[in-house]
């Protein structure tokens, strides 16, 4: 079972690395969107600092949302998804492998690039640390919950807007707590509570989302 997880993870990573230009797209999108905000307002460091948590988190949300398509789209289009479902291994494990690959390819790069954006938005260094922690805890949830959405919409023509319509409301708690943690940290206050909440949501998503995703995939395949 672990082997099945590992093999699928490696396959997805390899596929992504063969397409490096595509791999960078969500990351560039993330940086680009954050860059737009200072251009749209007066870029004083106080104003930027006040907006920073929200802006960075909303951009991260959108970057993940745009990249969700790659989670199942290709496998659905070429029939590999059927083969995955006909695997003797539990589908949940395979879903988890695919979600892990997705996070390693989109969530993790966002976490790594985030300090740079903190700099752009003149966040104090404590806040940048918390930003990294909050993204580290929050982005896996975005991938996990997003997987449910994609597996429901992968067979729908032009399902992109539909996907955002059904997924964004579910992202709201992560946005609230993630952005707030950074906000509070830039005032120099403790943020354990917020990070604990994000951790709890991550645990919940980790245990329920793969199940929901595999049910959703079966529904999609039954079409």
């Amino acid at each position, binding site marked *: 079972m672990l082997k099945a997880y590992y093999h699928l993870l490696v396959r997805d990573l390899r596929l992504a690395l063969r397409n490096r230009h595509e791999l960078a797209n969500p990351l560039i999108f993330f940086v680009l969107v954050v860059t737009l905000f200072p251009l749209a307002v007066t870029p004083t460091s106080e104003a930027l600092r006040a907006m920073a948590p929200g802006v960075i988190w909303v951009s991260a949300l959108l970057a993940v949302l745009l990249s969700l398509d790659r989670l199942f789209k290709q496998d659905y289009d070429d029939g590999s998804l059927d083969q995955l479902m006909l695997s003797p291994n539990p589908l949940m494990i395979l879903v988890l492998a695919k979600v892990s690959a997705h996070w390693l390819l989109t969530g993790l790069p966002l976490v790594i690039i985030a300090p740079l954006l903190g700099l752009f938005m003149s966040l104090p260094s404590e806040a940048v640390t918390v930003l990294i922690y909050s993204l580290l805890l929050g982005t896996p949830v975005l991938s996990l*919950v997003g997987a*449910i959405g994609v597996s*429901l*919409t992968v*067979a*729908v023509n032009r*399902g992109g807007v*539909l996907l955002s*319509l*059904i997924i*964004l*409301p*579910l992202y*709201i*708690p992560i946005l*609230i*707590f993630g952005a*707030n943690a950074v906000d509070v940290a830039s005032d120099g206050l403790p943020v354990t509570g917020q990070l604990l*909440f994000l951790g709890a*949501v991550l645990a*919940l998503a980790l245990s*329920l989302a793969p199940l*929901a995703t595999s*049910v*959703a995939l079966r*529904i*999609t395949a*039954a*079409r």
Partner: protein
Amino acid sequence: MWKWIQRFSSPKYFYSMSAPLITWFSIAALLTGLYGLYLGLFVAPPDYQQGESYRIIFIHVPAAWMSLFIYMVMAVSAAIGIIWQIRLADMVAAASAPIGASFAFLALVTGALWGKPMWGAYWVWDARLTSELILLFLYLGYMALQSAIEDQRSADKASGLLAIVGVVNIPIIHYSVEWWNTLHQGATVAKFDKPSMHIDMLIPLLLMAVAFKLLYAALVLVRARNEALYRDRNRRWVRELIEKL
């Protein structure tokens, strides 16, 4: 037992049994609603703080309750539909969504109209209104998914799963929005459900809530009957029924 459930949940049986129920629910809804309105608009005294404007809550609060209640009904019947393959449950779920969305919309509009004289603005980012708005988005997502998938069965199952995921999320969303709100607003805004509500106000409020529930029962039956007709359009019982019309 199983046979029994199958029989009573067959769309054909449902179609023939639901007709009288609709009449009774409608009459009951109308009577309760009119009595509730009478008590709410004529008998209940004006609020000592809000004056007459508080009379909006006789619609706002029941509508907000209903929007949440209907979402629960939707998710539960979707779960029944997915787990036990009972088609009637899928029909009830699909029929509930537009009604629930209407109630959520009503709660938002009346909330804004109540808010203007109270807060001086039609929209403030109050926890309740924000949660209600998110709930409306959840309904819209459900309906969008339902209509985007062509195969009826997959559409039911897929949107049903979404409703279940939504129900798991609602408490989390609600909690985080409440928490976010206390952080940003403080407790300065008046809340609707003051614990010390005058009994003369409480009774019409509850009556209206009952009336809305009855109204929903009637509406969902009407819509579910439509769903049954449409989905079974190629089945014998529908053909025979239509030919008799």
